[in-house]
């Protein structure tokens, strides 16, 4: 047989193709089939979670929402519903974290913003929406901005090239390239998934103590309550050097902190 394998021996071997071109195609088909096969499980967890939430079993709903999110693609809707279930089960910290995640995925999600403000009030922390980047993200859809910028940028570059060719310099080439570059930069800078990647959410009910130096018995700068958000600047073992909501900086331990953008 010299390495050739009967296709009947095992369905797995269906993808053991000698032709590399077709093997890639078959791998892609297999991936799609696997995704299709797995999707009812996601759907079941999500449906179950919604059912539990509607019946008032919020603890179980939270568990099912979280299990769904571990395997499925993230969704602002599901994070919002998870936050809602956490809010109803008297877990405002978990609710605030998930409302934040919903807002990161969809900065135009006004309902999530309103609920986050309410939850933050319950936690006694301020809602930090004063940043201009957050303001831009909450008003304009960033992906269309990015795509428009990319199209204009390339269009300008192609006009520039054809300008060389035809010796007819046009106003458009440099103008389009500049406008495109600005739009791309704007979408890049304002995307919460970029500028909030270093945010850490304080989940610990005891809050988080901030120190002057990365030593536990050093002078304490302040203590942040549960629900506060800090921005990590650098990390040293268990210690994180970061910026506090007021702009001050200090060291704090990573225990009890949760990345606002999940790291999985």
């Amino acid at each position, binding site marked *: 047989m010299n390495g050739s394998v009967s296709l009947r021996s095992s369905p797995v071997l269906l993808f053991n193709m000698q032709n590399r071109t077709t093997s890639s195609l078959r791998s892609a088909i297999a991936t799609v089939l696997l995704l299709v096969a797995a999707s009812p499980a996601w759907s079941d967890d999500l*449906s179950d979670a919604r059912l539990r939430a509607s019946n008032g079993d919020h603890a179980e709903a939270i568990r099912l929402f979280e299990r769904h999110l571990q395997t499925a693609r993230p969704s602002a*809707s599901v994070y919002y519903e998870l936050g809602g279930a956490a809010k109803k089960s008297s877990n405002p910290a978990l609710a605030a974290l998930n409302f934040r995640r919903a807002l990161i*995925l*969809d900065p135009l*999600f006004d309902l999530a913003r309103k609920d986050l403000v309410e939850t933050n009030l319950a936690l006694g922390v301020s809602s930090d929406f004063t940043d201009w980047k957050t303001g831009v993200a909450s008003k304009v859809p960033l992906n269309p901005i990015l795509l428009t910028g990319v199209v204009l940028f390339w269009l300008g570059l192609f006009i520039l090239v054809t300008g*060389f060719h035809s010796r007819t310099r046009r106003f458009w080439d440099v103008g389009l390239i500049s406008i495109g570059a600005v739009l*791309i930069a704007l979408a890049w800078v304002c*995307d919460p*998934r970029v500028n909030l990647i270093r945010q850490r959410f304080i989940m610990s009910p005891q809050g988080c103590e901030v120190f002057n130096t990365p030593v536990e018995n050093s002078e304490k700068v302040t203590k942040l309550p549960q629900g506060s958000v800090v921005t990590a600047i650098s990390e040293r073992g268990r210690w994180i050097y970061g910026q506090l909501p007021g702009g001050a900086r200090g060291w704090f331990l990573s225990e009890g902190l949760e990345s606002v953008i999940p790291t999985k």
Partner: protein
Amino acid sequence: MKKRVVILWMGFLLAASAILQAQEATAGLSSPSTSVGQPVELVVTVRDSRNAEVPQTIDVAGLRIELFGRATRFEMNNVKVTSSLTYTYSVVPLNAGEFTIPPIEVKVDKKTLKTAPARLSVMAGAPPRLPNAPSTRADVQPPAGQVTPYFGDLLLSKKKAYVGEVVPAELRYYFNSRISGEVGDRPNFGGEGFTAQKLTHVPKREQIVNGENYVVFGFQTGITPVKFGALEIPASSLEARLQVPGSPPPGFADIFQQFGGALPPGMFTNSRDVSIETKPVTIEVVSLPKEGKPENFSGAIGKFNMEASANPKKAEPGEPVTIKVLVSGQGNFDAMGAPELTADEGWRSYPPTEKFDPTDAIHFSGTKTFEFVLIAKQERYQTPGLKFTYLDPATGKYESLTHPPFVVEAKAGEVMPTPSPVAIPVPSETPKPVMSPMMPLSHVGGESSWMPLFKRPVFLWINLYVAFIWGVALIYTLVKKFTRSKYMRARAEASRVRIAIAELATCEDAAFYELASGCLASIVGGDAEMAGQIPGLTDAEKEVLRVLQERVAESKYSSKAGVKATSDERERVTQVLARVVIQYAK
């Protein structure tokens, strides 16, 4: 003289102690529960008194209570003197039920003391022993011989059990009421081959054992055997610090003997740390009977009842119907599974939620609630039925509790008020759970990835592809521009001239002048007439060029076509053309 002072001093202490001690009367039952016809003892203790009046009988409907004994105790702990009177009543239950023995009035001197009311539970038939009932006197046997100051005992509700069955147990530590001291929080208890519930403390009580009054500290637990065979429950010990009788200082006893008396018991005590142990007990553990064992036996062992309800009675398409099942009784609630749904075709069911509400501290009795959520896949007019199977350890047989289906009106169909972001249609044979109208509306929109668009592979590949095309276009444009430059054009002309001159050397004589004229035109860029004006040429060279033009005209316009060049003329013309190339390039 010295002895008399000591005696006077002792007398003063006794008198002062008698004054300072508060008189009180307490009442306690030897057992808080019994059965009809099984007597228990009611002990009334009057502290710090040598004489008291108590009623001979106590009137309680359903109970016959009569006084049958009286005892006096005189105790002396170091310098603390205690005297007490004990009155023992016989309590014979006549009927089953819950009884409250009212406060008993005790007249001491001119005062009237009242005991606290006591509660007695009387059951019909054999007396329950555990977990609610402490053992009777016959169960508890302190070591034979003289009165024991303390001892421990382990009481099990049964000596034979099934694997997985919960056996209520009580650890009891008896302390003679004459001694005082402190006991530890809880005993150390555990062993191999069984699991035990957390020990729970039973309120301290008094109990008469072999005519002696004991204070009993009890701890209840539930023991669950995990393997069959003989299971030994090992001894458990409770630490205590007791004030035990001690010896008087040297010569002290002589003082009493001089007056013809003996030293009162308990006058001198020593503090001693002791460890009170129960005796090991062996129980026989048997495996679950195979005969009649259902395939889907849930593991419940005990005695149970089942009640159920369904809500709502009318369900719209996609609306869930909840069946609530209450399983109550006594048994291993922690290990039992849910009841089984029978005839559930046409329904989609979800794993039930469970909640247990114990009525005792060891989780032996109580009610477990299961809630099944069902959604009709087809139009249905009744819910599935219910079946719960358990092993009754009293009979050793499997029992089944069933509940008929509930009448409901559940419509089939799916309601999707708002499409879910991840909702994927599935075949109708396996309908997925549908959202009820009460569910929160899903938000549509937003990203489906934590990775920004510009970091995603698709975006990067598309842009890379566009960049590649742009790069190709750029290179093409630059190459084209380069090839059209003056330099490249000059190079092309020079190449053409070189080829033309090379052709002159080999061409026919008749065609020589025509080719040479074309070559010259190429060198000067079109008009061969202009060749004479190229600077740097000598007159002779200009003359050669002029002759060349004449020969060409002659060939062209005369009737003698194709004027032939001599070899000398060819050589001269070729040399001059080479010179013209050089001069023109300058």
